[in-house]
């Protein structure tokens, strides 16, 4: 699906022709585009599993998918969405925008950039192939708790482990690239505290990636040893401990959830001021808030494990640490509100998505605060309340921010304005359907519906049906986004250098579409 015409114009020397352009490219814009296209394909692919899930849960009883297929679907849905859709989408945005925002000609390590992208299609193909293997695809959830994922796992688990390693290598290389680029390639005058927040949030995210991904690699390697080499890291019968797996997994997993949200903060921090036509409120505290969220993310992991049987002091520690995160997160939300206050606001599609992010991410954040309260979590844990919580922070959170960013920067990428009317329809369909999908899941969880079940007791029927209707609508609505993008790439009203009158930043000083090579001589920032 290399449908993009970005950079097709010829400057000093343009892109190579045909397939080679994409295979061999070291251009940050090409690589950014490939990441974005891949992530969107993965979003539809992971979304197809979600549609399957919602279809099965439409009514009580087993209708379309057997329980073992259902478990494979939830696992693939989670893995594809986390590693295939959300993370690569942000890497794509980083590739496109970081050099443009700091006035650099490209990423610092362009060949590695190419490699870190091209690993991914192979990783996801390998993961997908497991569906056709004996014993089926991985069926232990995206959190793959041992021993369900070791002793009791299907044989395809080995391929899953290999795929996770590949994704991890790709992420680490991407992160190194971001860090090196930001440290070394800022234009003269682009001091640390002048960097756009998107650059800041990505810098911090990159450090999180470098710290977290090797831990994930460690966890899956230990699984590999348990499965094939007779070790017992996670097997109590051999002196190991299944709970050790959870500690290691969540030591990666909690930073991981911030990896998926911090760049979203950056995107929203660019868009809200642009359409409120007023500078971002509290830039410095925004930077510090992101940094402290990132640091805290390493000492809260066991709040995912309040029920595994930890000592009381440990529960208290993880509860308090988790509650602390509410403070910097709150600061961010209030700062965004203050940015709107006394602005001059218009409601183009990127702004609508960013505003929806602000309200609905707050909703997800507040349910997160409720989950952090240990004793209350005894009831919420592993129910649909948790499913509702993390989908609120990930879909109207991360995914809405990505969509907001896509609409915001599409004119820069393609040189055309997208169809504003269709964009608004896409927004309202998404906004309404996502709430119909996930809001009722709070009630389901409180009423006692466990997560990851293919069938449920009759008292959960009504809200499930509602949630399924919302989910299927949301899924179908995204096809409109495909159409809007293709239409925008193909043509449309010409975009000026700076199509949004309130937008700030170096990316708006280059022509639209951004030429294949930009900032060959660094701009001066004052």
């Amino acid at each position: 699906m290399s449908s993009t015409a970005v950079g097709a114009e010829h400057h000093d020397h343009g892109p190579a022709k045909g397939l080679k352009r994409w295979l061999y490219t070291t251009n940050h814009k090409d690589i950014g585009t490939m990441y974005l296209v891949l992530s969107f394909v993965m979003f539809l692919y992971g979304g197809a599993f979600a549609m399957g899930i919602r279809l099965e849960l439409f009514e009580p009883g087993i209708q379309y998918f057997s329980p073992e297929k259902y478990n494979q679907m939830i696992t693939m849905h989670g893995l594809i969405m986390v590693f295939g859709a959300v993370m690569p989408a942000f890497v794509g945005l980083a590739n496109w925008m970081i050099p443009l925002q700091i006035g650099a000609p490209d990423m610092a390590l362009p060949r590695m950039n190419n490699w870190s992208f091209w690993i991914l299609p192979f990783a996801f193909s390998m993961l997908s192939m497991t569906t056709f293997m004996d014993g089926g695809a991985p069926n232990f959830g995206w959190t793959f708790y041992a021993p369900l994922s070791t002793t009791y796992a299907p044989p395809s688990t080995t391929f899953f482990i290999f795929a996770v390693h590949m994704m991890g290598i790709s992420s680490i290389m991407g992160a190194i690239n971001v860090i090196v680029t930001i440290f070394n390639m800022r234009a003269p005058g682009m001091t640390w505290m002048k960097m756009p927040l998107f650059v800041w949030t990505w810098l911090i995210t990159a450090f999180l990636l470098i710290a977290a991904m090797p831990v994930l690699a460690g966890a899956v390697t230990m699984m590999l040893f348990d499965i094939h080499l007779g070790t017992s890291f996670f097997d109590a019968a051999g002196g190991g401990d299944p709970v050790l797996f959870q500690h290691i997994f969540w030591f990666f997993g909690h930073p991981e959830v911030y990896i998926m949200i911090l760049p979203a903060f950056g995107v929203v921090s660019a868009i809200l001021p642009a359409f409120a036509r007023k500078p971002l409120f509290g830039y410095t505290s925004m930077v510090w808030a992101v940094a402290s969220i990132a640091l805290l993310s390493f000492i809260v992991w066991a709040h995912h494990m309040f029920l595994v049987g930890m000592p009381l002091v440990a529960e208290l520690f993880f509860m308090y640490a988790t509650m602390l995160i509410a403070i910097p997160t709150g600061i961010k939300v209030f700062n965004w509100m203050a940015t709107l206050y006394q602005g001059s606001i218009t409601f183009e599609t990127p702004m609508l998505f960013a505003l929806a992010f602000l309200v609905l991410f707050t909703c997800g954040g507040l349910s997160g605060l409720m989950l952090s309260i240990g004793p209350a979590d005894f009831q919420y844990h592993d129910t649909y309340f948790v499913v509702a919580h993390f989908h609120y922070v990930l879909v109207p959170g991360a995914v809405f921010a990505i969509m907001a960013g896509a609409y915001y920067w599409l004119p820069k990428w393609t040189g055309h304005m997208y169809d504003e009317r269709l964009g608004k329809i896409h927004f309202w369909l998404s906004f309404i359907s996502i709430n119909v999908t996930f809001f009722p899941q709070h009630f389901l969880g409180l009423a006692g519906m466990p997560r990851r079940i293919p069938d449920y007791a009759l008292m959960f029927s009504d809200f499930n049906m509602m949630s399924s209707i919302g989910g299927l609508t949301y899924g179908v609505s995204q096809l409109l986004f495909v159409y809007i993008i293709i239409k925008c790439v193909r043509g449309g009203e010409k975009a000026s250098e700076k199509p949004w009158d309130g937008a700030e930043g170096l990316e708006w000083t280059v022509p639209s579409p951004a030429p294949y090579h930009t900032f060959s001589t660094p701009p001066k920032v004052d």
Partner: protein
Amino acid sequence: MRILSFLALALYASTGFADWQLNMPQGVTSSSNEIYDLHQLILWICAVIGLLVTAGIGYCLIKFRKSKGAVPAKWDENLFAEVTWTVIPTIILVLMAIPASKTLANLYDTSNSEVDILVTGYQWKWQYEYIDEEVGFFSNMSTPRDQIEGDAEKGEHYLLEVDEPMVVPVGKKIRLLLTAKDVIHSWWIPEFGVKKDAVPGFINESWMVIDEPGVYRGQCTELCGKDHGFMPVVVHAVSEQEYDAWVAGKKEIAAQAALASMKTYSKDELMAEGEAVYMRTCAACHQANGTGIPAAGFPSLIGSPLIEGDVAGHIDIVLNGKPATAMQAFAAQLNDVELAAVVTYERNAWGNDKGDVVQPADVAAMRAEKE
């Protein structure tokens, strides 16, 4: 705005009703009540904060529109405001942390229990062993397959019913010791405010004092494989007299079973009993018609190697299981009569026609050999 009305609804419903239950049940133990109060407190705090934030954003969006001629201000800092929205949330958090810590400490106090029950999770059933009474049994979901597959009307307690519930006395402190035999499971009854992971190789503790007699239902809440959605938890809370009578009855049945294993049975008797045991214990994996689900690693038993082979091998795998596979050891789960019956059944059902008849004594002999 729709979200707001949803939220308002959520707050209205302090206790649930029928199908549109919105909130957590208040429950029937002191723990569940404490958790419920804490939940209400934090729900209200979060709802109010959420409403204020939404209202604030709504106000800005209405008041400061460009289309209404709003002119943007230039400021981007205000120390006082920033300090305010750091300090106030901190105070609110402390106010939430205090009751939360107290409740947590209380939930951890498993001392002075009067009834101790060892709860063991298996793929996909629970075992309850009453430590002081030497009573123990398995609890399997009893919802028939045809209800799940839509071939029969779904019953009132669809998926939340078992063949043998846990029975406990009201008003006594019950301590649960939780563990598992294969993967991690999690035992949950919302009305008790008790949820705890059952981890293989480790023992976790939890406790409850139930205030009101009744039938309470919950489910396994940790993904534990194929039938994770089909391992309900059901507890009957009864008066102390009823409980004592139940314990006595259980002991009586155990004594009779011991006698029964001395007897010799006809093939028809064994086949009938065997079919019942098979449907209850084996069909989840090997399927009612014996074909298994080979794609998911559960082999067919029709003409399979061990069934084609001699009886000893067949009894052995059922007694002792096969390590590191889902085929668990049934030695502790089934008595000799049940084991003899199910092996006889498997060897003579679905077109298998080995003609063998296995007697309880054969099983007992193999058990003895093992020990």
